C-alpha cells in the first residue's frame, strides 16, 4: 500500500472538524492519563477518536487534534502518516483489511482477497491488503473495522459481506464449525471426565 506523505489533494474538502461532546469526554479522559504538560502523549489515542468520529482523518481533524494537545500541526501529520491504521482518505463504511502474509496466503487468502475486491465499492466496503494480523491459526483472516473474521474461504467471505450489506453484523471469529482455535468439528482429545 502506498503511503501518504503529502497532504492529499484528491479527497473531499472538509470545512471544519470538532469533537462531539461524547467524543470530547473520551478525549479528556485520555489526556488525563498523562501528567499535566504531557498532554501530547495522548496524540495517537486522540487521533483514533477523531478517526472513529469522522470515519477517516481529514486535515482539519489533525489540526484540531494539534490544537487540543497544544502541538505543532506538523508533529501530528508525522504521526498520522507514520501509522498505516490512520486513514487519510475517506473509506467505505466497512474497511476490509485482508491479511495476505504467508500463512493466510497458503490457506487461500487470494480467493478471499478476490471476493473482497469484488465487493469493494468505496461506499460500503473498502479493501486494504495488510501484513500479518496475528491470527495465523485461523488463517485466512480479514479484519472488518474492529473485528476479526477467521477461517474464511471465498464462499464464507461472500456470506459475511452479504450480511453486512443487508445491515446485519455477522458473528465475528471463525466462520467454520470451530470454537476459537480449537479443532474443527469439536474436541478431538480430552473428551472424558
Amino acid at each position, binding site marked *: 500500500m*502506498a*503511503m*501518504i*506523505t*503529502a*497532504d492529499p489533494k484528491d479527497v473531499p474538502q472538509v470545512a471544519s472538524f470538532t469533537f462531539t461532546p461524547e467524543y470530547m469526554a473520551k478525549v479528556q479522559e485520555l489526556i488525563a492519563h498523562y501528567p499535566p504538560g504531557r498532554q501530547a502523549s495522548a496524540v495517537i489515542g486522540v487521533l483514533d477518536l477523531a478517526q472513529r468520529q469522522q470515519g477517516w482523518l481529514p*486535515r482539519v481533524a489533525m489540526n484540531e487534534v494539534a490544537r487540543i494537545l497544544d502541538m*505543532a*500541526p*506538523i*508533529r501530528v*501529520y*508525522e504521526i498520522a*502518516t*507514520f501509522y498505516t491504521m490512520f486513514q487519510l482518505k475517506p473509506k467505505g463504511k466497512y474497511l476490509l483489511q485482508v491479511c495476505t502474509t504467508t500463512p493466510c496466503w497458503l490457506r487461500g487468502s487470494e480467493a478471499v482477497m478476490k471476493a473482497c475486491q469484488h465487493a469493494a465499492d468505496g461506499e460500503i466496503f473498502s479493501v486494504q491488503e495488510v501484513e500479518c494480523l496475528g491470527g495465523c491459526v485461523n488463517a485466512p483472516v480479514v479484519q472488518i473495522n474492529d473485528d476479526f473474521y477467521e477461517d474464511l474461504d471465498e464462499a464464507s467471505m461472500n456470506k459475511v459481506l452479504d450480511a453486512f450489506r443487508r445491515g446485519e453484523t455477522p458473528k465475528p471469529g471463525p466462520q467454520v464449525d470451530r470454537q476459537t482455535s480449537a479443532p474443527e468439528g469439536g474436541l478431538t482429545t480430552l473428551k472424558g471426565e
Partner: protein
Amino acid sequence: MPKVKIDGVEIEVPAGITVLQACELAGVEIPRFCYHERLSIAGNCRMCLVEVKPGPPKPQASCALPVADKQEIFTKTPVVQKARNGVMEFLLINHPLDCPICDQGGECDLQDQAMAYGFDRSRYHENKRAVPDKELGPLVKTSMNRCIHCTRCIRFATEVAGVEELGATGRGESMEVTTYVEHALSTELAGNLVDLCPVGALTSKPYAFEARSWELTKTESIDVLDGLGSNIRIDTRGAQVMRVLPRLNDDVNEEWISDKTRHAIDGLRHQRLDRPYVRKAGKLIEATWDEAFGAITTKLKGMDGAKIAAIAGDQCDAESMVALKDLMTALGSPNIDCRQDGAKLDGPRGSYIFNAGVHGIDSADAILLIGSNPRTESPVLNARIRKRYLHGRCAIASIGPVADLTYPVERLGAGPATLRELTDGKLGFFEKLKAAKNPLIIVGMGAVAREDGAAVLAMARELAEKLNAVREDWNGFAVLHTTAARVGGLDLGLVPGEGGRDVAGILAGCEKGEIGAVYLLAADEIDTKRLGKAFVIYQGHHGDAGAHRADVILPGAAYTEKPGTYVNTEGRVQLGRRAGYPPGDAREDWAILRALSERLGKTLSYDTLAQVRSRLVSVNKVFAAIDQQVPGAWGPFGKAGTTTDAAFVSAVANFYMTCPISRASRTMADCMASRAHLMAAE
C-alpha cells in the same frame, strides 16, 4: 574526568560528552551526517560507527554514546571500516548519481565521505526511489531525491529557528522530509538550512547553478545589514559577490546568519552609483570627479560653518565617519549626527552598547525587552535568546510591540507608563528581575528613537541600577542597535557639537533655510523632502532616497568593496575586508572625503588606510582592540522627564528591506511577497 583510550592513545576528557566528541578532542576524525554540534542528537545516519570496549560486540554510533571511564574506543579497525562502508552503500542506494549537476558538488559531505568509504560500483539493480520536490519558499531549493534523512533541517527549524514546520512524514522507504501542507518556511533564518544540509537536497535558490565552490574567492568579512555584525565569508567570482556564508564566532553569531545578511547581496548589482553626478537645471548629469568636486567647492567656499551640516548613514565604516567628522570640524561645523532615526543616545559608552555581550544572553536568568522585536531587528540574536529559553529557568517579558518571537514572552504593556510601573516595583515581574542573578534589560531602538527617548532611557537606567544589574561581574544593561554604523559613530563622537544641530534640527534648519548645505554620507533613512532648498551632497553606493534628492553625487563603495572597521551592537570592533572593487568610478569612502578636503583647502592629515586607522585609535582607543568587546563606562545618562503615552514600536517593521542594499534586492522582494502570502493564508 574520565580517562579513555582512543586507538591506543590515552586521553582525559570532560565528563558527560559523547564518544564522538572525545574522538574529536583526540584529533581523530569521525565521519557523520546527522550529528551537528549545535543541534540535538538524532543518531539516525549510523555513519559514525566505532567499536567500544567494554560493550556489545558490534559497532556503536559514537554520536549518541556517552564516554565512560576506562573505555577503549577503536575507530580504525577492519570491523569499523566495513560497517561504515556498509552504511555508505545503503545511503547511496537511493541517492542519485547527479553530482555533476548538483549545486552541492565540491562541498558535499556525502561526496567527500564516499571518497573514503564508498564502494566503487553499485550492487543495487532496482529502481531508485523518486521523491517529489518540496516548495520551501524563495530561498531554499529542494531536490528531495538526494535527501538522506539526516533530519538536521527538521531539528534546526524546530530548535534554533523555533518554527515547527518541517517534519518527516511516512515511514521506511516512504519517509519524506516535508512541511506536509505546502508552504514557505516562516523564519528569517531559512538560509542556514542550506548550510546544514550535508547533501544537495536543500540548496540555495537564488544561487542555483551560479557557480562552483572551487572557482570562488573567499574573503572573511563582517556583515552590515543589521547591528549584530555577524561574521561572514564573502564568496566572489571576479567583481561579483556570488554568495555570503556565515563564519564561526561563538561570541557573536555562532554559525548562523539571517536571510537578509545572506541573500540581500543581489542588491549590490542593482541601482549602483558608478560615477559622479552633478545637478544642472534640475537634472542629474554625469560628471567627472573633478567637476563634482568643483561644484561642491564653489558652493561651500566662504559658507559659514554653522550653515553646513552632515549626516552619516547606517552602514558607514568607521574610517569614512572619522573623515567626515574631521572634515566638518575643519569647516567649522558643529552640525553632525549619525542617528538618522533620532535615537536619544549620546551618553557614556555603557549607555549605548549591548554591555552584557551577545554571549551574555547565555548566562542571563531574567530578560526584559523594552521597545524591541529582536526577531525582526536581529534574528540571530533572537535565536540566541530562544536558545537561552530552551535551556530553561529564564523568565522573559516584554514592554512594547506584540510579536511571535519563537519563545513565550510575558507581555507587560505597551509603552513608557508600564516601564514606570515596573521601575517602581509595582509589577510582579519586578520581583522576578530582582531575584535573578543576572538580569538582562534589552533596550530597543523603538524605545529611544522617539521624542521622549531620553526620559525612557533614564528610566531604563534607573531600573538597571535598582536591580543591581550593573556590577563588576555583570552588566545587564543592553542596547540592541538595528544598524551597523551606529555604535561606531557614537564611539567617534558623530553627535552635534557645542550649539550644533541633530538630525531633527538639521532638517528643520533646511526647511527654514538656516542650513545651506547638507553632506549625506550614505544617509537614506531621513525624510529627504524636508531638505528644502539646501545644497545636498550625497556620497554613497546606491541610488536610493538620498541620491534622488542630491545636487552632487559622489559614488562610494559598498561594504563588500572596501576594507572597513565596524563596531557591532555590543561594542565589538571588527574588521571587514575587501572582497572586490567598487563599480566604475566609485571609490573608497574615506578616500573620497580626503580628496574633497584637499579641494576645499582643509586637507585631512591622513593619506593611507593605516593612517586613518591610527587616527581612529587616537579618537577613541577602543578601535585598537580588534575583535574584542571593550566594556563601556557607566555614568549618568538619559534625562528624567515626562513621557508620552505612545506605545513602543519596533524600529524594524519590515525585516527584509531596511537599507539601500536590501531595498535593491530582488530576492528580498521575493521574500517579502512570500511572507505576505503566508500571512494572508493564516
